[in-house]
């Protein structure tokens, strides 16, 4: 029974990692860009929500609804003003720029909010749980997981049902021919990064409500997100969820054996997948 419980907790934790990863997967899928500041942007969004909740007195949900468009704008500007200029055949410039951004953001947050641990107050949701017979699950982890599923369903619908999604996929396939279709690839990239930042805001809400956070924890979130993306296979959103779940389960199982092994177990699961299936579990047919 304890193992079933561990498994369920792991799956639910995987939802959080999938939320971290969805934006990364989106951006990589469309423009082959790896944003090393992704984790720090999640933390940045968490502070944004925190400000909304503690200083403006908004409920977390309302704060999310306010913060998401702001983050969309941040992503749009970041892509238009900075990243579009360094995208190209050479992968070094975008990597170094986003790495610089990562360090800048971390220290900017440190300067603004200090190194103290903070948490977004979630009211009655905190600690609430539901008894499902065999196992008891926390309401918060369950909500996280359901949000991850909702985000992925939503992104998939956007990708496969809308004209914008078509433009995303076309630009990802062949940016030159997309131009011949009247699509400005750079504008598409800006919208994609904006969208990724809106998703990041959702991830940030749960990051901040579930546990304490401080300016330094971004890079670790980036790593979990990255692992989920690689395990899932580049560009597959459902694969990213599966990847997140694998990391989550590996971590809870590791922690059940020895609390010190939690993080390590997640990384090892990633390395094993990398050894056995270097292209991930659900690789895209065309790449």
């Amino acid at each position, binding site marked *: 029974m304890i193992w079933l419980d561990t498994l369920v907790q792991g799956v639910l934790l995987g939802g959080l990692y999938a939320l971290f990863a969805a934006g990364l997967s989106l951006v990589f899928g469309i423009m082959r860009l790896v944003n090393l500041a992704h984790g720090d942007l999640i933390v940045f969004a968490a502070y944004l929500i925190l400000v909304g909740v503690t200083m403006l007195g908004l409920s977390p949900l309302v704060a999310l609804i306010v913060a998401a468009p702001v983050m969309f704008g941040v992503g749009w500007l970041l892509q238009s003003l900075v990243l579009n200029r360094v995208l190209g055949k050479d992968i070094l410039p975008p990597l170094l720029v986003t790495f*610089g951004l990562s360090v800048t953001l971390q220290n900017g947050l440190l300067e603004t909010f200090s190194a103290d641990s903070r948490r977004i107050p979630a009211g009655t949701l905190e600690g609430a749980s539901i008894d499902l017979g065999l196992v008891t699950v926390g309401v918060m982890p369950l909500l996280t997981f359901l949000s991850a599923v909702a985000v992925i369903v939503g992104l998939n619908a956007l990708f496969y049902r809308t004209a914008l999604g078509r433009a995303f996929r076309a630009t990802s396939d062949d940016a030159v021919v997309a131009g011949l279709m009247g699509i400005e690839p750079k504008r598409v990239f800006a919208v994609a990064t904006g969208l990724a930042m809106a998703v990041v805001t959702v991830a940030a809400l749960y990051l901040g409500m579930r546990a304490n956070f401080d300016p330094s924890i971004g890079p670790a979130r980036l790593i979990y997100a990255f692992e989920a993306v*690689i395990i899932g296979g580049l560009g597959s959103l459902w694969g990213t969820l599966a990847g997140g779940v694998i990391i989550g389960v590996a971590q809870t199982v590791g922690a059940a054996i020895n609390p010190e092994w939690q993080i390590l177990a997640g990384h090892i699961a990633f390395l094993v997948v990398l050894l056995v299936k270097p292209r991930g579990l659900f690789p895209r047919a065309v790449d």
Partner: protein
Amino acid sequence: MYRLTIRTRAGNATTIAVALLILIGLALPAVAPRSAIQDLFFILTMLTLAQLWNLLAGYGGLISVGQQAFVGIGAYAMFAGVILLGWNPVVAILFGGLAAFLLAIPFAYLAFRLQGAYFAIGTWVLAEVTRLLVAQWKTLGGGTGTSLPREATSAILGTDTIRALFGVRDAAARDILAYWLALVLVVAVTGGIYWLLRSRLGLALAAVRDNVDAAGSVGVDTGRLKWAVFLIAAVATGLTGGLVFMQTARISPDAAFALTDWTAYVIFIVVIGGIGTIEGPVIGVLVLFALRAALADYGSWYLMTLGVLAIAVMLFAPKGLWGLISARTGLHLFPVRRRLTGPKIEGGN
């Protein structure tokens, strides 16, 4: 009738200037205060790490964000040599290089499965894994770390002589020794890279950097080249790690495997100074040190400034400060150009 030369007047001048600087550097502890020696130790070790990262990323195209793994493993191996095997710390530093080599083999095997940007984060994950595994090593203090035992630090090879020579106390003597070793290391690493770039390996690296397909078509083995560069950088990074933690004499997984200290600063040094040149990291480390001195009282402003500076350099001067200088003056202090000399050849350097 035809000959190959690499020497230039600027290069010869550099050789003389560097030789003089080394001599001055060796003699410096006689006059410089302890704080200056410590600052110089910081500059020299950071410069060593920067030259090595530059070899990886600037010449080998391998953008690693996980070099802290080799600093950390080198440092821990040095501690293990001293604490568990009872070796003298100076000897144990060599053990650090060996440990880094052994770690680099599985590390590269896994990381080379990933391409481009994913290689970068892959190295980061592998460094994290190394840190977490080392943190399980209870005899060396686990997650909290440990210190070098007093009897080991006071008996480091050569400190007696230094004490006698300069009339300083134990701790200061250890700093001077560490400084000298750092000087030797930076000269060996920079000199080694310089030699490498002038050897056939350097030719292959430049060819691969310019055009992978064409390099293959003239017989360059690009796979082996990657391995060679990665292993060389790993070993020397491990030696540097051992030396740095011999000087501090205290270790913990968080300090030894710190991304900020051993990779972020290093990347900024290389990017700001100019990637893909030997001169770049030298300029970069001076900028870093100047900023550190100027912003010492402003905490995180220091790192923020570095980050913004690196972004600005990437956007507006991708070849870094040395790139700007070199483009203006045409100066190359460390020439690697192989020139053909003989009849009927005109101009061009």
